[in-house]
C-alpha cells in the first residue's frame, strides 16, 4: 500500500505541476490556457532533440525549460492578449488557445515526426528503496522538484512585493494599473512562469513517456483535472495539492480495483468533488471579487 502512495505522489507531482501552471495563468488573467500541455510537450521534445544531438544534459534541460516558457509567452501575446484587449470577459480565448495548441502540436509532429523518440534517462535508472516500496530516482526527483517549486512560488507570492502585486492584479486589475502596475507585463510573466512549471513537468516525466508530440493532450487534461479537484481556480497552490491527490487516487485505483481503473476513477472523483464543492477542495473560503461593474463607472 505504501508503494502506491509513493508512486501516486510521484505521478501526482507531474499532474500538480501542470495543474499549478494552469492555475497561475488563470489566477492572473482569468483565462484557461488550453495550450498548457503543449508547453510541457515542447520542453520534452526540445530536451530530447538537444540531448540526442550530443550536447550536455544540463544544456538540453535548460533549453527545454526555456522553450516551454517561450511557447507560453507567445501563446499569451498571440492568442490571449488580443482577446482580453477586446473584451475582458469574452470567451474567445477558448478558441484561440485551442488553436494555438493545435499549431504547436502539429508543428512538433511535423518537425520530429509522430512516433516516440528517445529521451535521456536522467535518474530513471536508479532504484531507491524506502521501507517496502521502490521508487526510481526520477520519481523522487519529481516529488522533490514539485514540492520545492510550489513552496518557492508560495513564498514569493506571500512575502515579496511582487507577489503582493500579483495578488492585487488578480483581485482588481484596473486598480492595480491605477497604482502603477503594468498588467500586460504581469500577465506575460504569469504565462512565462506557468511555462516553466509545465516544462519542468515535461523534463521530469520524459524518461518514462519518451518524446512524443501528442503528449500534450493527455497531460494537459490531467493537469486540468488536478486544478479542478484542488480548487486551483481560486488559489494556485491548490492546483499542486490537487495533483498529488489525483496521483495517489489514480495509483490507488490501479492497485486496489483493477489495472485499468485509473482511466475512469479520477473522473468519478472529480464529478463527486465538483458536486459537493464546485470550487475544489483546497481553495480558500474567501471570494476573489472581480470588480466588474466598477470598470464601467459613470458620472
Amino acid at each position, binding site marked *: 500500500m505504501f508503494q502506491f502512495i509513493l508512486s501516486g505522489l510521484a505521478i501526482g507531482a507531474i499532474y500538480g505541476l501542470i495543474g499549478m501552471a494552469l492555475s497561475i495563468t488563470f489566477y492572473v488573467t482569468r483565462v*484557461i490556457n488550453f495550450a498548457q500541455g503543449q508547453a510541457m510537450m515542447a520542453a520534452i521534445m526540445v530536451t530530447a532533440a538537444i540531448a540526442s544531438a550530443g550536447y550536455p544534459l544540463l544544456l538540453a534541460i535548460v533549453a527545454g525549460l526555456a522553450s516551454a516558457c517561450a511557447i507560453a509567452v507567445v501563446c499569451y501575446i498571440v492568442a490571449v492578449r488580443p482577446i482580453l484587449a477586446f473584451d475582458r470577459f469574452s470567451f*474567445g480565448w*477558448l478558441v*484561440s488557445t485551442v*488553436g494555438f495548441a493545435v*499549431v504547436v502540436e*502539429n508543428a512538433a509532429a511535423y518537425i520530429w515526426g509522430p512516433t516516440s523518440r528517445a529521451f535521456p534517462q536522467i535518474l530513471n535508472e536508479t532504484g531507491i528503496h524506502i521501507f517496502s516500496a521502490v521508487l526510481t530516482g526520477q520519481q523522487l526527483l519529481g516529488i522533490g522538484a514539485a514540492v520545492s517549486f510550489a513552496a518557492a512560488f508560495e513564498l514569493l507570492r506571500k512575502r515579496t512585493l511582487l507577489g503582493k502585486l500579483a495578488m492585487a492584479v488578480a483581485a482588481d486589475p484596473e486598480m492595480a494599473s491605477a497604482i502603477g502596475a503594468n498588467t500586460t507585463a504581469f500577465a506575460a510573466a504569469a504565462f512565462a512562469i506557468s511555462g516553466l512549471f509545465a516544462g519542468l513537468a515535461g523534463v521530469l516525466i520524459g524518461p518514462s513517456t519518451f518524446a512524443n508530440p501528442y503528449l500534450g493532450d493527455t497531460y494537459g487534461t490531467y493537469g486540468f483535472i488536478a486544478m479542478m479537484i484542488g480548487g486551483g481556480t481560486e488559489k494556485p497552490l491548490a492546483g499542486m495539492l490537487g495533483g498529488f491527490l489525483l496521483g495517489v487516487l489514480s495509483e490507488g485505483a490501479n492497485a486496489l480495483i483493477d489495472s*485499468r481503473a485509473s*482511466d475512469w476513477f479520477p473522473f468519478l472523483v*472529480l464529478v463527486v468533488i465538483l458536486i459537493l464543492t464546485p470550487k475544489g477542495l483546497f481553495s480558500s473560503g474567501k471570494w476573489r471579487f472581480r470588480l466588474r461593474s466598477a470598470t464601467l463607472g459613470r458620472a
Partner: protein
Amino acid sequence: MRSGTETKSGERSESAAVSSNWFGDWPRAPGYLVVIGYLALTLLVARSSLNVQSVVLVAAVFGVLAISLDLVAGMLGLYSLGQGGFFAIGAYLTAIAASDYDVNVFLPLPVVVVVTGLLGMAIGALSLRVSGLYFSITTFIFTLVLTVLATDSTITRGTQGLLGPVFPDFPDALAPLGAPVAWCAMLALLMAAALVWNIRRSPLYPVLLSIRDAEPFAEAAGVRTSLVKVAIFGLSAAMAGSAGWVFSFIGVVSPGQFDWSVSLNILVMVLVGGIDTTLGPIVGTAFVTMFPALVNINPWLQEILYGALSIVAITVFPEGVVGLAKRRLGGGSGAGETEPSAEGPSAFAPGGVPISTSGGSTGPVGRADGREVIVECRGVEFSYALGPRVLRNVDLSVHRGHIHGLIGPNGSGKSTLANIIAGRLHPQSGTIFVKGRQVDGLAPSERARRGLRRTFQAAELVRNLTTTQNVLVGLYSEVPGIARRAAIWTMLASGRRDMTSMSTRAEEALGSVGAAQWTNKQVGDVPHGIEQLTQLASVCVAGPDIIVLDEPATGLSAREVEHLAQILTALKSRGVTMIIIEHQTRFLFPLCDQVTVLNAGEVVLTGSSDEVRVNPTVRQVYLGE
C-alpha cells in the same frame, strides 16, 4: 384581439410597417426561394458520390450541433461545452438499439429526444447554481466523463465503437431522389435553422437576450428566468441528441467522435462563424468541417494552418464572420460622436401625452383611494453577507394611488429597501405585504406578475436590441403562449397577430414616455436619458398597479426631468401607486403625497413633503450640518 387596438386601425398598420424590419413582415417570395434552392442543393448532394456525401453530411450534422450550441451560448450567454455529450448519447442509443436489439431505425429518435431533453434540463438546472466559467467547466467535464464511460464499457464496444444502422432506402418510385440519408441530414439542418430563425423573430428572442445581458431586468419584468433557461437547455440538448441519431447512419459511433475536443470544436464553429446569428454557426461549421477536405497538403501543415486560421479569425473578428458582416451592413460608426442633444424639441412630445390604454390586463381601476395600504413593510432588518446592518426595524406604509418618496443620504439603505420590496433581496427579519398579501420569499418575477414592477438606477437593457424590443420584454408575462409558439412563430397567424399588437403597444408605451423618436434605434446608440425612459416604458406597457422607481431622474436634463414629472403625474391619475427613491428633491417633493426619510438604515421621519422639507433633523441628516 383587444378592442382597444382595433379602433386605431390606421395608426396600427403604420406602426406595423415601422416594426416590420425586425419582425419580418417577411415577404414570402424570397423565403420560398431560399427553401427551394436548399432542396435543390440537397438533391444534388443526395445523388453525388459517397466521398462528397460523407463530407457534406457530417458538416450538416455539425451544423445542427452548432446551431444547438448557439441557442444556449449565443442567446442565453451560457457557454455549454456539453453538446458533445448529448451528441454521444443520441448516437450511441441509436447504434446500440439497432445492433443489439434490432429495432426499427426511427424508433430511437423520440427516445433520444426525450432522454437528451431531460438530461439537458438537468444540466440547465445546474447552471442556476454555478455561473459563468464554472458552468462551462462543469459541462466540459460532463462530456469528458461520458467519453470515458464510452471508452471503457463493453456495451459501447470501447474505443472501437459501433457501426450504426443503415438508413432504409427509398421505395423504388422515389429512387431518383438519391440517398435518403442525405435527405435526412440536410432536412435536419433545415429544420434546426428554421427553428432558430423563428425564435429570433418571436417575442421570445428579446426575452432570451435580456436573460443573457440583464437578468435582473428580465426578472423584474415578470420573466421566470430559471424556467426559461432550463427549457432552452432541454431544447438545445434534444437538438444535439437528434444530431447524434442522424450521425449514427453516417459515421462510426466511437468515443473519439464525441470527446471534449469535439465540444470545443463546436464552440469554435459558433464563435468563428458569428455567435447569436442564424447563419453564423452554419458558416463556421462549413469552415471547420470542410477545411480538411479543401486544403490538401501535408496533414500536419494542414492542421497548423487550421489552428493558425482559427486564432486569426477569433482575434481579428471577435464577433465572428457573420457578426462582422451584420455590423458593417448595419452601418456602425466610430466612437466619440457627440451625443445628439436629447433636449431638442423632437425628443419628446410637448405637453405630455397621456398614457395610452394599450389594454394592460390589470389596468388600475377605481379611484385613487388614499386609505388602503397597498405596500407595507414591517420591522424589516437587513445586512449583506457578513457585513454591518444596513436596515434596522424599518416600517413603511404606502397607500394606493399615492406617490411615496424615499430619500436619504448615500448609504442610508434606500436602494436596499427598494430591492427588498421588489424581491431581489430578502430581509433577515420583518415582512413585506403587497396588496394585502405577504410576499416574503416571492421572486421578483412573481411580484411583477402580481402588478409590482420596478426600474433600476442604472438602466439594464439589452444594448444590441432596439428600444421597442426591450420594451417587449415587459409584455412577456402578459401575452400567453409565447414560449410555446416561439419555434414556429412566423408560420402561425396568431404569431403575426400577437407580434403586431405587442409591437404597437410597445411603441405606444415609448411614445407616452416621450421616446417616440427612438423606437427603432438600438439601445447601445441611445443617450442615457432615453435609456431611462425606455426602462420606464417597459414597466408601463404592462399596466402595473405599483411601480418602484430607483433614482429615475439620474442623468436627465432639466427638461427631461420636468417631462418625467408629467409622466408620473399622469400615471398617478390612472391610479398607479409609485414609490420613488430620489436625491433631486426639487423634482420629488412636489410629486409626493408622502415622504419617508432614511438615515443609516433607520426611518427618521415619514410625512408630507412640506413637513419633511422644514424638519430640522432632516436638514441636518441630509446636509450633515
